[in-house]
């Protein structure tokens, strides 16, 4: 028996702009989706994957136009309709009713002025003509289904009152409440922490198999594909380069681009090298590092409880080594970096030491302003977002020579010379010094940021999530660049990341942070081969890998991703009574009760 597909897209082309300036961003895309199938559209930014998803629902931005193609949706009775030929009112009945969409940023995709219940019930009212008590009942059922611990609370909550994971669950509830035939999910977990991502992915998979709906998953992450999709469509510059069953594509890719994507996906290497034992020659170290923010003053002089962003952190960075600090948002990892650079003052009692090439030990915690300036020349920082950390009004030359000017180094010609050298060092052409940041891609901009950090010939660089705004293939290149520079210039790195797999290849040592404390710290090899703390295990288990045979281990995620109270003995604790770090093998420290 021949099965008619649920959705058949043929020759879809989308143009931005009109006339001679029109740009074709999607070029003749074909795809077929069976009932109950889950299809992943994979590609990097600019590949046209999101535009393809939005074109199916005809919710493209105003400047975009569908120029060619058909999208045939087959109804339950076998009736076929071309979505691109429907009138607007009939299309509206399909949007949210038969095809629903889940977006990337749950915070900005939900209205902050309306309760979650209101926004979810609206879809029901529109498509199932159910409102009032019955609509509410169906919504509450859906909330329970998507894993809200307290559906009643979710009904009357505003989006900004929910955590990131719950917000995305609210989005999913909104898409699911009308029981659509097809859900298009546009990077639904990209904005979430890894452990939350694992839980949301699991939820979506369960919902899909439970209701028998089809799904189109738009993502840049092959790990997500391996875990979620039956078949894959790889897109590049608006064209499909390869499509087929997930297992075939991931194990035996036919196209070079697919192979490159798989190679660039960060994964934990099977066999790791790297130093073991204690740090022998420390460059920067800190003890008793804590930071408490006063609680917000509200109303009539009342004050909320103070927030302990960082508590009793002790870290050591070896010369020429990389220490990775890994944790989810709010774990205090970036605060640690700011405290080490004295961009913020730690709580009294902290001890921060620095010993540079000159062999002189300096006390960073109590440094004067003048000495701090000299210290910052030797320790530089690279930020997460290369788009906002470069001034759009300065040419690259100005950006690269500014640090030299600030510290009064060299003549104009010498500074220019130095800028040209820096460009070559980070793999850019010195001929482009006169350009402005907007002329560069994200990866190139991050190279410029790195060049700027290198301008003063520092001994150490703090990298605050330097690759999380970049595409995977670009991320791999930037990581390679950092590795090369470390070897060439004898740099030490403090590498902040939310993703364990990203740091696996670069880090000599890893410190895992949760709730402002280090829960496990070890040489990278020991940490990845013998993780002990349930939270570390959860982080490793939650990282999706592009391997269909290694699916996410959700049991492990559930054990470690929760609050410290629900960690098993001897790791769990209540309140601020965290157990101290114990050395379980040389250099490997775990927070546990003895």
């Amino acid at each position: 028996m021949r099965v008619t597909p649920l959705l058949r897209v043929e020759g879809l082309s989308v143009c931005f702009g009109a006339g001679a300036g029109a740009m074709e961003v999607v070029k003749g895309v074909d795809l077929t989706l069976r009932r109950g199938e889950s299809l992943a559209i994979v590609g990097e930014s600019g590949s046209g994957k999101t535009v393809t998803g939005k074109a199916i629902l005809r919710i493209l931005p105003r400047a975009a136009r569908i120029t060619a193609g058909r999208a045939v949706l087959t109804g339950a009775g076998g009736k076929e309709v071309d979505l691109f030929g429907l009138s607007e009112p009939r299309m509206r009945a399909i949007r949210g009713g038969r095809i629903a969409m889940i977006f990337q940023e749950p915070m900005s995709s939900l209205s902050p002025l309306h309760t979650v219940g209101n926004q979810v019930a609206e879809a029901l009212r529109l498509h199932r003509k159910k409102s009032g008590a019955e609509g509410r009942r169906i919504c509450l059922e859906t909330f329970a289904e998507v894993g809200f611990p307290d559906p009643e609370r979710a009904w009357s909550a505003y989006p900004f009152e929910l955590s990131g994971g719950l917000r995305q669950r609210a989005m999913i509830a909104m898409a699911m409440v009308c029981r659509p035939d097809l859900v298009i999910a546009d990077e639904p977990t990209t904005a979430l922490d890894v452990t939350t991502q694992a839980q949301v992915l699991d939820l979506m998979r369960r919902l899909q198999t439970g209701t028998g709906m089809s799904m189109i998953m738009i993502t840049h992450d092959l790990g997500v594909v391996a875990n979620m999709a039956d078949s894959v469509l790889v897109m590049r510059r608006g064209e499909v380069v390869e499509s087929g069953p997930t297992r075939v594509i991931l194990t035996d890719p036919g196209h070079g681009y697919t192979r490159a994507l798989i190679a660039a996906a960060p994964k934990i290497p099977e066999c790791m090298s790297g130093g073991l034992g204690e740090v022998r020659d420390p460059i920067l170290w800190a003890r008793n590092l804590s930071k408490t923010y006063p609680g917000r003053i509200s109303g009539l002089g009342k004050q909320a409880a103070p927030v302990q962003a960082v508590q009793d952190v002790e870290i050591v960075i070896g010369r020429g080594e990389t220490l990775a600090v890994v944790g989810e948002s709010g774990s205090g990892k970036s605060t640690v970096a700011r405290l080490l650079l004295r961009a913020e003052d730690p709580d009294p009692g902290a001890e921060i030491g620095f010993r540079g090439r000159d062999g002189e030990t300096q006390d960073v915690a109590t440094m004067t302003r003048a000495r701090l300036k000299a210290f910052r020349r030797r320790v530089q920082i690279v930020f997460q977002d290369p788009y906002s950390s470069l001034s759009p009004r300065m040419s690259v030359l100005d950006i690269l020579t500014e640090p030299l000017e600030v510290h009064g180094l060299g003549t104009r010609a010498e500074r220019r010379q130095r800028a040209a050298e820096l460009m070559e060092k980070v793999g850019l052409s010195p001929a482009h010094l006169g350009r402005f940041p907007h002329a560069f891609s994200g990866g190139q901009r991050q190279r410029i940021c790195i060049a700027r950090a290198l301008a003063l010939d520092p001994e150490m660089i703090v990298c605050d999530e330097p690759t999380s705004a970049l595409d995977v293939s670009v991320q791999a290149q930037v990581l390679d660049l950092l590795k090369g520079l470390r070897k060439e210039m004898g740099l030490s790195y403090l590498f902040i990341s939310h993703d364990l797999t990203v740091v696996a290849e670069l880090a000599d040592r890893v410190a895992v942070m949760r709730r402002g404390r280090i829960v496990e710290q070890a040489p990278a090899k020991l940490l990845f081969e013998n993780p002990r703390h349930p939270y570390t295990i959860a982080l490793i288990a939650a990282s999706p890998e592009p391997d269909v045979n290694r699916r996410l281990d959700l049991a492990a995620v559930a054990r470690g991703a929760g609050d410290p109270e629900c960690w098993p003995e001897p790791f769990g604790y209540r309140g601020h009574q965290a157990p101290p770090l114990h050395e379980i093998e040389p250099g490997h420290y775990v927070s546990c009760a003895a």
Partner: protein
Amino acid sequence: MARFILRRCVTMIWTLAVVSVLVFIIVNLPPGDILSNRIDELMASGEEASVAQARFIAAQYSLDQPLWKQYLIWMGVWPGPNGFSGILQGDLGWSFELDRPVADIVGEAVWMTVVLNFTTIIFVYVFALPLGAIAAVRANTLVDYVATFIGYIGLATPNFLLALVLYNYGAQWFGLPVGGMMGREFSGQPLSWAKILDVLEHLIVPVIVIGTSGMAAMVRRLRANLLDELGKPYVVTAAAKGLPPARAVVKYPLRMALNPFVADIGNMLPQLVSGSVIVSVVMGLQTIGPILLQSLRSQDYFLSGFILLFVSVLTLVGMLVSDILLALLDPRIRFAGRGR
């Protein structure tokens, strides 16, 4: 919510106290106010009777007291020559120029001002909201250009010119009354339906004249705000849900764009009062605008002091109203007030 309003009222009282001090200092700052001039004249004449009269006047209005005590007496928290008798007790003082109690002079004008300004604000909002919304949704189309054009004309035309034109054609085509806030026969009469209707009829032209430029500015601002909001992801979400465009715009982005719109009420009130002085003179409106102008020129300081204070109260009430509306409109503000 009740606590929020209470808290705002408490801060409002403090602000008013500070404002009253400032107003008192300002009206007393320039030398040569009308009363000291008269006293100086009497003293200069050298005649015993005149000097005695001057002393009496000075004592009567506590001019022989230090400035801070004068302020307290004016406010009515310090016993003056006639015991506690100041603004708090409802004694607004004496206008030396017009030789009448301030309360008599401003009495009806205050109410006329309140009526005129609130009607103007309502007019501005009723027209600016749909015009701005349509201009944004249909951005860069004919509708938008027409709205923009009308807006610029509204901004650029001098108010008094608009007043003359509207009076002329209003009277010619619709038989609208020319000048004033009410027919002469109702002046000084107790409130009645006939009087209210007459006032409303007289209000039409002044409200259009005073409100047009504010409305034009408001349309521009709403259009810009709404255009920003229309590109936001939650609007796409609403479309993906299958919501018809008009309903989607009204429910989501328009409500977001309303914030600055509502926050403006407080600013608009004093602008309307001070900005409409010339118009009031031209149109013969019995509002406090012209009285304020006159009293400032002659430095009739009880009168000008009270009017300035009254405008401040109006502003603060406007701010309070806009804050309450904002809190009602935007849960984020409500929750920040709760201090989660």
